[in-house]
């Protein structure tokens, strides 16, 4: 089998352009990239089917003149699938535009938050580290974690503080804690 050099080059160009577009943040550019890649793959199937021949219909053309029908069937299937998925991506891009007025692919917020904790050297959550922390530090953390419900937390802290009085020792800790929050 001798592949057609023009088709091979075309596949290369389509793949290169597709990959380049996929690197963009905008969803519509990524979609165009995916479309180019799909077309590249379709042409790859055409190369796979060998030299072009006559239509593979029994009784119209002689079998030795026919082109291979199997890759054509596969390409058709792939085109139909891509059509459906493209429609879905367009709908998603539209929805993204409706919601955020942009179709950029956003970062994962939770991931960013956890990475930020790593930068702050605050990964452990352990009780040991909490003790070393200064009051001011603790207050900041509480504000960040409490989702704006600090007032709520402070009230409850008070309640537990009262309960803890009987135990003697815990009192100091709990009270420090509620003071932090109050600040």
């Amino acid at each position: 089998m001798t592949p057609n050099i023009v088709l091979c080059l075309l596949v290369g160009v389509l793949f290169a352009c597709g990959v380049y577009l996929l690197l963009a943040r905008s969803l519509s550019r990524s979609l165009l990239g995916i479309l180019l890649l799909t077309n590249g793959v379709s042409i790859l199937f055409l190369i796979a089917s060998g030299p072009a021949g006559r239509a593979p219909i029994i009784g119209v053309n002689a079998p030795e003149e026919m082109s291979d029908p199997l890759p054509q069937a596969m390409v058709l299937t792939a085109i139909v699938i891509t059509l459906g998925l493209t429609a879905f991506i367009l709908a998603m891009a539209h929805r993204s535009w409706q919601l955020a007025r942009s179709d950029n692919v956003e970062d994962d917020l939770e991931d960013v938050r956890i990475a930020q904790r790593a930068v702050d050297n605050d990964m452990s959550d352990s009780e040991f580290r909490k003790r070393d922390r200064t009051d001011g530090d603790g207050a900041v953390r509480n504000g960040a974690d409490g989702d704006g419900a600090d007032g709520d937390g402070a009230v409850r802290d008070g309640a537990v503080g009262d309960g803890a009085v009987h135990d003697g020792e815990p009192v100091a800790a709990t009270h420090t804690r509620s003071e932090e929050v109050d600040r």
Partner: protein
Amino acid sequence: MTWTPEFLVPLPVVLALVGAGITIAVGRHTRTQRTVSVVTLALVLTVSLALLISVDTVGHPLAVQVGGWPAPDGITLVVDRLSALMLVVSATVTLGVLLYSIGQGRASADSDEGDGGAPLPIFHPTMLVLSAGVSNAFIAGDLFNLYVGFEVLLAASFVLLTLGGTAERIRAGVSYVVVSLIASLIFLSAVAMIYAATGTVNLAQLATRLDDLPDSTTLVLQLMLLLGFCVKAAVFPLSGWLPDSYPTAPAPVTAVFAGLLTKVGVYSIIRTQTLLFPGDRLTDLLLWAALATMLVGILGAVAQDDIKRMLSFTLISHIGYMLFGIALSSAAGLSAAIFYVAHHITIQTTLFLVAGLIERRGGSTSLSQLGGLVKVAPVLSILFFIPAMNLAGIPPFSGFLGKVGLMQAGAEDGGWLPYTLIAGSVLTSLLTLYAISRVWGRAFWRDPAAQLRADPSQGHVIEAAARPVSRVGGPIGNPEAATDGSREGHVEVDTAHLPLGMMVPAAALVTVGMAITIIAGPLFGVTDRAAGELRERTPYVEAVFPDGVP
């Protein structure tokens, strides 16, 4: 025409698709829709069980030529022991998840939650289409049909992941969709190149024809296929998309994704590595990938604050175990890998369902906002504890048996790299236990009073006693408060009792997970025979071409 077990082969796909059509037609009648989808999946499960039993007793794979077109031209469907086992496990968990989501839908029918529940008539048909796609991938006898199976399940998963179209789900959906499509395109290019090289996409025919190709060509084709499948299976350098997208979906959706979608990738790796590219050419590469997947995945899990994200990372990490077994490519390794796949599908799905229950009970899955669940929801705690210990591989459970099987296989192989992998898998197992006990300690055990009793060292007890109360508060509702009349103002009262419709399916899956332990002996028998069949290759080829390969 007499009855043969071959008649059962296409049924898992056909039944699910017919069921999907009916559920769309009756879309507005929620009750009918639920009945149809449950009956459909129960039938699929029955058929899959019958397939597993008949394929194991007949002793050779069952092959069907769709439409009567003979093998290399038509579409071939093949069920061997591996496919049949996968079908049974996937049908079981899909049925469990569907029942759970029905329970959830009924419980929240009056509220506006709508998570995979009644208000969306699209949910049930999509789940059935997803099931059909997964089954199609398992029974596909040619590469292109495998691709079609992937696309069917991906299209369904796109819809499920972006259900409701909220900003967060669209954001997560975009990266998932783009990554999945790229993986599919790599796979499709590989199919085109394989067709160009061999002139066929039929797996059985490829098994003989690929041997005649030059070694370098085969290597390129093998790597292309592996690349596509590894993205889908979330093997380490290609796994970044998973924890980004899974946790945002509704609990039942995440559960079924976690259980099935990555495992379809693992199944495809097993199938192509054994049937098309036997030998140990890529053993070292796969072993390194397995090690990195295990360790990087579990280190990610340890850092997470959210239970669903933590579970997503353990999911990635434990894909490494399966890859370990596949890479060894010995009979023992493959057998243990298949056992591990069956175990892990069940356990991971159960854990995500339980995470959904935790979210419902505690109002959140964030560890910084949960606490004291063991007191207010003891049954839920048991439901979490058993599969969690199972995942970590604590001795009586199937996770332990699977891991031991893998380690034995690694030790049999005997090189320094397999021994490194054994050390890595022990470490991963311990770190999984750490991640799990972190969840247990914070979400379930973090009760001030209990902490005081349990912890002998006074020093940080004080802090522990003080912390939960100051952090647990918040708009979402505090589970502890449910037991305490004086704090009633902070509670969502209707979450006090978990709906039975959600508890029972979750409990049933927990039981299935424990049952795997009990039937581990016979199951290992099946996986041993499956692995033997995979390594021999001839049974598969002879089932498709009884009169010799053309």
